[in-house]
């Protein structure tokens, strides 16, 4: 029957629409469902995953010493050349000339956070750090030197 179908159509349509409205209505009335985290206000409590790869970082200990030998493994491992090692020769205590790192240049503007450099590092000198507040107004600021000025290689790291 045409008319019965017509009414059934209308009824079904209205019912399906009301079902949808019920769901949005539920969320409208249940504010506990809100999951927003207010970023700049929650900076104090914000805990990111430890493994989150935000930038490459070279840990320095209290003596301003790091573990980078300047072996260039990371530079080779990096797929898109965002690490550059500038090495220099230093004369160590025994009077021998030895290659050491001068600048570990890291281009954050190109880094893809793939973690291959960290994998490749034989002395565990570089890590991924979970920082993220890195925005700048000039992209030159994103070219960083990872070893701090005046830092040295830690004793015993080969």
């Amino acid at each position, binding site marked *: 029957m045409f008319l019965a179908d017509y009414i059934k159509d209308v009824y079904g349509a209205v019912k399906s629409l009301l079902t949808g409205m019920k769901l949005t209505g539920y969320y409208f009335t249940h504010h506990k469902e809100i999951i927003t985290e207010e970023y700049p206000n929650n900076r104090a409590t914000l805990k990111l*995953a430890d493994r*989150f790869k935000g930038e490459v970082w070279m840990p320095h200990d209290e003596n301003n010493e790091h573990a980078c030998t300047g072996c260039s493994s990371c530079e080779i491992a990096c797929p898109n050349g965002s690490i550059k090692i500038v090495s220099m020769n230093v004369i160590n205590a025994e009077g021998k000339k030895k290659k050491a790192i001068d600048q570990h240049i890291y281009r954050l503007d190109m880094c893809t956070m793939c973690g291959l450099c960290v994998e490749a590092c034989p002395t565990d000198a570089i890590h991924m750090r979970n920082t993220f507040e890195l925005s700048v107004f000039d992209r030159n600021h994103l070219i960083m030197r990872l070893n701090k000025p005046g830092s040295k290689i830690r004793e015993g790291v080969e």
Partner: protein
Amino acid sequence: MFEEIGTTEEGDLIINVGPQHPATHGVLHLVLTLNGEIIKKVEPHLGYIHRSIEKMCESLSYRQFIYVTSRMDYLSAHINNHACALIVEKGLNVEVPQRAQYIRVIMDELTRIASHELWWSAMSMDLGAFTPYFLAFREREKINEIMEETCGARLTMNYMVPGGVMTELHPDFQEKVKSFIVDFKKTLHEYDELITGNVIFQNRMKGVGYISKEDVITYGCTGPVARASGLRSDIRKIAPYDVYDKVEFDEIIETGGDCFARYQVRIKEMSQSIRIIEQLIDNIPEGDFQAKTKAVLKLPKGEFYQRVETARGELGVYIVSEGAAQPYKIKFRSPGFSNLSALDHMVRGHKIGDFIAAMGTLDLVIPDIDR
């Protein structure tokens, strides 16, 4: 000549949709020939995100090239990486530890759910419903958190390496995945309430963008698009890799061939993914997560082809090796590329709204098409 004057002689309107258009999900450029609201022709213009990944890969080592592929189809980054890892392993004849295989499959399926969720939200948004976007991203965010804890990144993880996975699972991983499964099963019901059952949505979807099984085959469509027309095309069933032959799941086949069938396939696939994860998550064997491989990988001379099932369909990686540390030639057969070629066939004679709906259900990721 028609292109010059903007209309054809019959008074048709030529209109650009994309590269910057909310419904093209990125930078697809489609030139529509319209007669009023009716679409006469759709012509895709690609290359607005062509980054020459294939060319790049020719100068990257077998360890390095994996990370580029996660930028290709960024929604199934894990699965892309998986394909690359598999083909390198195939070439080197490396036995991957069972643990790594389990982890890989779980990650793949999580990625598939996340990808389908994004598709669901984006498609709903194309159809003009905004709330689904937020509901789906709530679940996606949970997956992202799980991923972030283990892989250290939210989207382009670069977690798979030749021989296994990069790092050990996070201690909380299993627990979080299990609680996610419980939540997600509830949420799927909400999706039905909000969108699937909606009369407007069904009218927009049913009978729209029809493509027959024969056309699906000749256009080379894959994934949910092919399965919605009745073509068995799930690589996980046809050519199982890793532990897919050990788990039980159904290949979702619909015969409608229209947008609604494609929609149903994806929605049901999500529950199948859940099923796979449920089977695996408690049974991850102990052991290494990575096989021992050499520092510099060199594939033997020859040709290798690996197919995997991404969220969008069949991804093929074709490598020609000359024995060097870099591939001599690499080709990614992306699922979106062939699915896109069927778009014109699907929407001819339909209206602009149908075109948007059809494009939404194709679930195109443009960097995957352009590469």
